[in-house]
């Protein structure tokens, strides 16, 4: 395997033109995405790093794709802002990898995911052409929005070199409550209750404990309003759902890292709806799992990837394997799509980008 680390867009263009098959990689934090490539040249993007333009007053930031999420988050934090899509691997991922994999953490619940905060990008496509898509202002509807298309594209259509995001002011304080339920159905009923109510949670995750299910909830806001909001919220959930117990937990980074407790050779992300959770879950009880974003994303850690693959197939769901060596990172129901293949035909007609 050849690895090349272009230091400029021009070098990346040349590398794409000169390679037969090429695979973009940032910090390599999602190992499964970089396995099974049969000797494709690796374009290491970590030299294309750094913040290009950050204007807190505009709520926008433009960074090079190889910039570590950690670095971007620190710069935003200094100005009291954050990226509300909450990149999944805040300590190890690059921002380009976060977009390519469409990987958000639990706080994505409040305002939206990667697709909701990307505004534009600069890319190099499979023909080595460098061009821009989208825009640099928070609102723009000119031309086809290829920047959103890049979200989840796994580098197979164009390699990102620069990304522009919308950012928001962050809130000063958090409080976290855990509600325990005997059965998964009870916990899901609590989610449905919360969904139809006025409470604006910062995050809402669900995880199995030994003999119960725990609903993790987080409120964010001003110090002086949190006690009252917490009180109202917990009272409402207690009176409308059949829970076992309630506890306030120490709000910490670990508590809200959906992957923190998940051990296993493979880690899989699944996008699903809350109502698909029970059927999927009963097929993977041997795996460690957590359901994030109000039951809209499953994180599954397993030693037995084929069991998860089978479960996905049975439920007509697709998964993205992030950890471990695999032949194909995309498992479960196939995602081939005629619209996506038309885009591929235009941006990478020779099938160079893998």
């Amino acid at each position: 395997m050849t690895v090349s680390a272009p230091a400029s867009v021009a070098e990346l263009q040349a590398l794409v033109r000169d390679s037969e098959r090429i695979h973009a990689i940032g910090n390599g934090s999602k190992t499964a995405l970089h396995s099974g490539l049969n000797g494709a040249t690796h374009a290491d993007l970590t030299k294309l790093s750094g913040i290009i333009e950050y204007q807190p007053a505009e709520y926008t930031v433009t960074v090079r794709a190889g910039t570590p999420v950690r670095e971007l988050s620190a710069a935003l934090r200094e100005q009291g802002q954050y990226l509300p899509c909450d990149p999944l691997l805040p300590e190890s991922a690059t921002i380009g990898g976060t977009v390519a994999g469409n990987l958000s953490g639990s706080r994505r619940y409040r305002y939206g995911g990667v697709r909701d905060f990307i505004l534009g990008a600069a890319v190099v496509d499979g023909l080595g052409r460098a061009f821009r898509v989208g825009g640099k202002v928070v609102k723009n509807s000119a031309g086809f929005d290829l920047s959103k298309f890049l979200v989840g594209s796994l580098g197979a259509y164009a390699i990102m070199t620069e990304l522009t995001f919308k950012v928001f002011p962050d809130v000063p304080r958090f409080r976290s409550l855990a509600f325990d339920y005997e059965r998964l159905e009870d916990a899901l009923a609590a989610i449905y209750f919360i969904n139809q109510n006025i409470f604006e949670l910062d995050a809402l995750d669900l995880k199995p404990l030994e003999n119960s299910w725990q609903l993790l909830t987080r409120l964010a806001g001003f110090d002086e309003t949190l006690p009252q909001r917490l009180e109202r919220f917990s009272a409402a959930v207690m009176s409308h759902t059949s829970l076992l117990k309630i506890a306030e937990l120490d709000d910490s980074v670990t508590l809200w890292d959906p992957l923190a407790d998940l051990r296993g050779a493979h880690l899989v992300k699944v996008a699903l709806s809350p109502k698909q959770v029970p059927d999927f879950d009963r097929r993977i009880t041997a795996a460690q799992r957590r359901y994030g974003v109000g039951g809209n994303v499953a994180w599954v850690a397993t030693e037995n990837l084929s069991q998860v693959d089978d479960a996905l197939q049975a439920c007509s769901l697709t998964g993205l394997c992030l950890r471990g060596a695999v032949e194909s990172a995309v498992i479960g129901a196939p995602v081939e799509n005629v619209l996506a293949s038309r885009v591929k035909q235009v941006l990478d007609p020779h099938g160079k980008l893998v």
Partner: protein
Amino acid sequence: MNRAFIAALESIYPADRLLTREVELLPYESDALTAFSAVPGAVVLPVNEAEIIDTVRLCHEQAVPFVARGSGTSLSGGSLPIPDGLTIGLNRLNRIKKLDPEQRIAVVEPGVINLAITEAAQPYGLYYAPDPSSQSICTIGGNIAFNSGGAHCLKYGMTSNHVLGMKVVLADGALTQFGGESIEGVGIGPDLIGLFVGSEGLFGIALEITVRLMPQPELYRTVLAAYDDLGRAGDAVSMVVASGLLPGAMEIMDRLAIKAAEASVQAGYPDAEALLIVELEGEAPQVEAEFDQLRGIIDESGAFEVRVANDEEERTRIWKGRKGAFSAVGRLSPDYIVQDGVVPRSRLGEALVEISALKEKYQLEVANVFHAGDGNLHPLILYDGREDGALEKAEALAGEILALCIRLGGSITGEHGIGMEKRDYLPAMFSEEEIDIMQALRLAIDPKEIANRGKMFPGGEAPALAQHGMHPLERAGVISRE
């Protein structure tokens, strides 16, 4: 229109849903960009998915251009008919097929009216967030095509951010679907929803759309602040942003727009050079605390009068003037052009000064209404179409405003799209290579260029500019422009 093609349409549609006589076609000759008109060769009114698919396949086979149309409220001429082409009217596909309040989603047909989703969701304490000013009449299909926005986009985004799944027929007749009921949308694989939404009808027709619903905020706090200087209102916006508050909406109107709104809906606005509306929304305790902070900022911003909506009725009154401002301008001038451009928020002041200078240069009145929170300007250029060359002069001024938006680092459209109106400005924003790539993409999906031919891309045959004044529905006060 070719006789064989009409005959083929006759095999799909009964006579009352296939319009070919001139008197039947005339109502479709324009959309809300009334400066353009073109008579379609025929209009069909499908009532189900299968008819749409058959129609698109027939058009592809016979290379007949088509435009899909909802209520025809496009301000960029996006649903303007193609001369002698086919117009596919989608209003009859207006069923809400599924409403699942537990998962906060709705599955709708393309002809469903934007506001109808909110009305259906209301009993469950939910609503559909994107709120273009034409929301009482515009359809979701059109919102999808143009990625419609509204006054409340700052926090929760535009149409694209609220679509979770779609079933579409591409321009060459291929059927596909992507996304689903998960809030992650497509989730795994490229975000095809993001690509399709805003493609201005050039990729095909959305047959079924899954949208996300949001919980209705417990409390709104709406403030109206009056300033004796437009720049000061703009500065107030910057102060709000710098404070770390995230309002649901921030809107500015200038003197002429205020005057128009007053004349039209008697909103009871103060006599001012500029009005700023800021709206906070969310959980009551948090909003009350944010509101205290906001009051402090507004008080320091040099407003000479501040009004707070104390109930829903007062809130509605504040918004009524703003939402009706565009059509209200029609009372001041026989004709006007609604422009839609974006500048970085911090350069709003600069943009307004330059627009003012352009007013002088062209000797035309310009009313300014804008979504200040996201730098989205909507200058309204007033002119009298009965005067020789007046429209051309107004168009030239509009063009200079767009050039200004690009120079300041913004965009030529925030939410109305390119359509017919701005296709010649696309090259000002994208390089030749970028436009070539977009064109190649279009050809890969629609090799015969039949879907909404003549829109978005520069050049091509254009119908002559005509003079029409307000949209008839607008004149009747049914719709308004954003």
